[in-house]
């Protein structure tokens, strides 16, 4: 469904993403992990059209989408969320979600009904009329998810939606993501919370210093010495 081939992106002299290739199959939940600064968010932004890439190719459902304007990519059904949540601050929660729903419906009544359905799916019915600035962390993360989901995407790019959640909120969110996936939405997510990665994803790519250093099923990944090294550093044996 999504094919990233040899994508590179530099900021000045810094190669944030270096020759990355990955693939997401329809119906899958794939994860992209890696230490801070590995280039996960940059890669997400590049896929969603927010960064121009230097070289390589990106295909979504067989169509090339590299360097296409972000709103066009979103209309094709590839929608991202932001790690730093980006609510429409002075709008209420429901009005935020309706903005997403308006991609599917042109009239207010249908858009609102659709948005309310999405909110219910995410357990947000009680906070619909609240201004979005007043939300707690979990509320903001859910809203970020809800806005994207309301556009009825085919592929969701979730950028650390579980960062900063407490254990019970985490479990709830994992369940929600599984439900979204079961309803037919393919998901590619980045995450630091390994519990979530292990439970959710069927395939994992590990990014370090902009390069894919390992990929495979989650169980294989955690025992891969390269991955352990990237996260924890090398043991100083021969010193």
């Amino acid at each position, binding site marked *: 469904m999504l094919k990233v081939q040899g994508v590179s992106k530099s900021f000045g002299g810094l190669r944030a993403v270096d020759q990355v290739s990955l693939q997401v199959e329809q119906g899958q939940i794939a994860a992209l992990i890696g230490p801070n600064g590995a280039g996960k968010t940059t890669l997400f932004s590049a896929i969603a059209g927010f960064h121009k890439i230097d070289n390589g190719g990106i295909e979504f459902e067989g169509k090339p989408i590299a360097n296409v304007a972000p709103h066009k990519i979103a209309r094709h059904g590839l929608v991202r969320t932001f790690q730093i949540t980006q*609510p429409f601050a002075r709008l209420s929660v429901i009005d935020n979600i309706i*903005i997403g729903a308006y991609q599917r419906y042109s009239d*207010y009544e249908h858009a609102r009904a659709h948005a309310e359905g999405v909110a219910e799916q995410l357990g947000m019915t009680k906070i619909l009329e609240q201004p979005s600035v007043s939300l707690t962390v979990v509320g903001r993360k859910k809203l970020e998810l809800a806005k994207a989901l309301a556009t009825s995407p085919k592929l969701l790019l979730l950028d650390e939606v579980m960062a900063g959640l407490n254990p019970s909120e985490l479990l709830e969110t994992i369940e929600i993501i599984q439900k979204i996936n079961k309803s037919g939405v393919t998901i590619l997510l980045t995450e630091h919370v390994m519990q979530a990665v292990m439970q959710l994803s069927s395939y994992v790519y590990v990014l370090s210093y902009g390069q894919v250093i390992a990929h495979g099923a989650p169980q294989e990944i955690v025992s891969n010495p390269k991955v352990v090294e990237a996260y924890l550093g090398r043991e100083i044996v021969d010193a």
Partner: protein
Amino acid sequence: MSQSRSGASHSVTWKLHLAILICALAYPFLFTSNFAINLGVMALFYALIGQSWNLSGGFAGQLSFGHVGFFGFGAYASTILQLRYGVSPWLGLPAAALAGAASAGFVAILSFRAGLKGSYFALITLAFVEVFKIISNSVEFTGAGLGLLIPKKIGFENFQFKDRLAFYLIILILTALSVATAEWLRRSRFGARLAAIRENEEAAQALGIDVFTEKVKIMLLSGAVCGTGGCFFAQYFLYIDPSIAFGLDKSVEMLLVSMIGGQGTVYGPLLGSILLAILSEGTRSISQVQGLSLVLYGGLLIVIIAFLPHGLIELFKKIKPSQSRGTDA
């Protein structure tokens, strides 16, 4: 405000619109003096051009200092058509809308293509107006620095009336249309998208909103409304010159009436302009000091920004108990 877009309140807003329209219609028949009608005309005129600013500045968050430029294009378009080509000012009105829209589109496309936002956009619009002003000051076609004088020939076909009441009714229709446009914006998908752009452009893009196109569209609409204001102004005073048509004082007044009344709201500009009209005419009758009204207005602006950051309209909302609460999370 876009917060209150709920289906249940539609019948309430209908009654509100009707009540305000009836008041506006009754006004010139209750207060028949020339002074009162002139006051009404000026209040509605500022409500019209204030609303045009509000469409792009309030609803879409594109703060412009250059709206007077679109006003000026409208004023010059209808006046030049009339003086040089003998076109009736009634046809000049749509022509002015077109000219206003075209100039706004020109400014918008150039600035948004270059990615100018916020204060950069505000500054570039200011620069455009200066350019327009200098050009109109030096070109014979626009009457240069002397300006253009429309000869007084009272008659319906010339858009000139003996009785100011006719002007009042015309500006009332124009302003009512601009309010209707704002009301439509508040309820429509287009308006919701503009609100999204105002709040967060990147997030709007991520949800599939074509930010550039939507911003250009609202500037075209805003420019058209502003252009009709220009045509009306020229017909009412029968004279324009570069410092009237492209004078920054009008830009500031458009912005002020929206901000004081409540930007991004349907009735904010009208509320602000009524206050401005009363203040300016009122202070003029008390004292001969030029611009005293603006001093008062400036002071008022400070008070309002401090205590009613969303504008005077908040006072009315506070009376209504139906507003959603829940900021305590």
